[in-house]
């Protein structure tokens, strides 16, 4: 944000630097259950972002003083790999990673039924393998899929999208160049069923009207991404179902259970 350059981010046809229209998303691919040792996991490719999310728990919270006798604690850890960006990122949590971990934890907590598991922790690890702007939202989107894969009770799958201002125009889902040289970036996450906002941050400057427009745009996109999450989960769990319906027709009896 705020860096100066003479690159034109939006051309005379109104198209963006990567050829997208102002309200167009980057391609998104979600995969479920990619890690065997985790209780739940997901992998997301969102434009140039490549992110792994793993969920462990609910399990006994350690150290013990962090336990809450009435509810579970949600511990998300956002981490960028040293090789995830152009210039090597110094490994380990920095100010930015700690902040993102905190807002992601709180966004997920808004959806999880934490009262069901007193004294436990639900640990979410988000590893950014390749970054290309919008990693916190992509990580959060993958994390909620991993939570569902881990069988954790929640109101709905948290989902998000970013919107921002580039060359004086409100655009959806900023890429790296737009994020670096644009005027504003506004990541947003919602609980799709109620459209309740669980995460919203802003970097840069926008007028009140522009913020309103950006929020509407991001919300609309989030609802679309929500369907991608659900499709990914169904793809993993409905495998056996196809076989089932075929066999049911000539059998008619459910064995077992």
């Amino acid at each position, binding site marked *: 944000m705020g860096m100066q350059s003479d690159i034109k981010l939006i051309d005379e046809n109104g198209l963006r630097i990567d050829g997208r229209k102002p309200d167009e998303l980057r391609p998104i691919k979600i995969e479920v259950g990619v890690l065997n040792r985790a*209780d739940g996991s997901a992998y997301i490719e969102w434009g140039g972002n490549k992110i792994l999310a793993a969920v462990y728990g609910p399990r006994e919270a350690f150290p013990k003083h962090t336990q809450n006798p009435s509810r579970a604690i949600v511990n998300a850890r956002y981490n960028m790999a040293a090789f995830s960006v152009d210039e090597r990122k110094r490994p380990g949590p920095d100010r930015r990673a700690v902040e993102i971990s905190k807002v992601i934890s709180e966004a997920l907590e808004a959806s999880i039924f934490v009262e069901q598991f007193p004294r436990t922790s639900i640990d979410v690890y988000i590893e950014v393998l390749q970054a290309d702007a919008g990693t916190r939202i992509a990580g959060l989107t993958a994390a909620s899929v991993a939570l*569902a894969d881990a069988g*954790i009770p929640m109101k709905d799958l948290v989902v998000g999208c970013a919107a921002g201002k580039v060359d004086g125009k409100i655009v959806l889902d900023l890429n790296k160049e737009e994020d670096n040289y644009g005027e504003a970036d506004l990541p947003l996450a919602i609980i799709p069923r109620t459209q309740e906002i669980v995460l919203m941050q802003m970097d840069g400057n926008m007028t009140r009207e522009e913020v309103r427009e950006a929020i509407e745009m991001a919300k609309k996109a989030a609802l679309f991404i929500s369907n991608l999450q659900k499709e990914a989960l169904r793809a993993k769990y409905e495998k056996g179902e196809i076989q*089932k319906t075929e066999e049911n027709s000539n059998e008619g009896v459910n*064995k*077992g259970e």
Partner: protein
Amino acid sequence: MDLNKKIVLPGEEIDINGFKQGNGLYFEDGKYYSYQLGLIQVYNNFVNIIPLSGKYFPSKNDKVIAKVIEIAPSFWVLDINSPYPAFLHVNDTPWKPSSGELAKILNVGDTVYAKVNEITESRQIWLSIKEPGLRKIEGGHIVTVQPSRVSRIIGKGGSMVNMIKESTGVKIQLGQNGVVWLDGEPEKVLEVIRILKFIEEESTASGLTDAVKSRLEKSR
């Protein structure tokens, strides 16, 4: 009804159609929603969501396979593959050790086949092995499966597990917590592990008993 056996995701609206709200559903603004990834099942007029993944949550009288992780003056602390540890008091065992000698009976790392005796309000889990069939487990192999798939492995009236036992000659003891104890010839044990993994993966399919049967016959 077509509600049965449908896969639902968290937050999916469920029309419970005059049935009662069972496990895995929450109520908000006059509608019912699923809170877990699972299969819908209607049982005794209750609509339940059978989870397809997740940790084991004990309920009273469940038989589990537990591993000793700690020894206290008059009880053992055991891991039952759940978010909370379980406890076994000496009074709930057939043995009467003198104080301080608990390690001679069950040491850290030992495994028992036990019953969930009591779950207190503060979610303390107390086990018991004072019943015929419950015992300390010696020898054999331990594997873990998804706890929600255990009923599928057992089959109707034990049909599935008995078939595997008869066909391979391997002794099998299933814990509700997804821990399985196997004892027999090494090759046969490996074969059973493969079959357990197969059942775990295909647990939503019906006609599974026949599929397992043909696999067993092939391996013979």
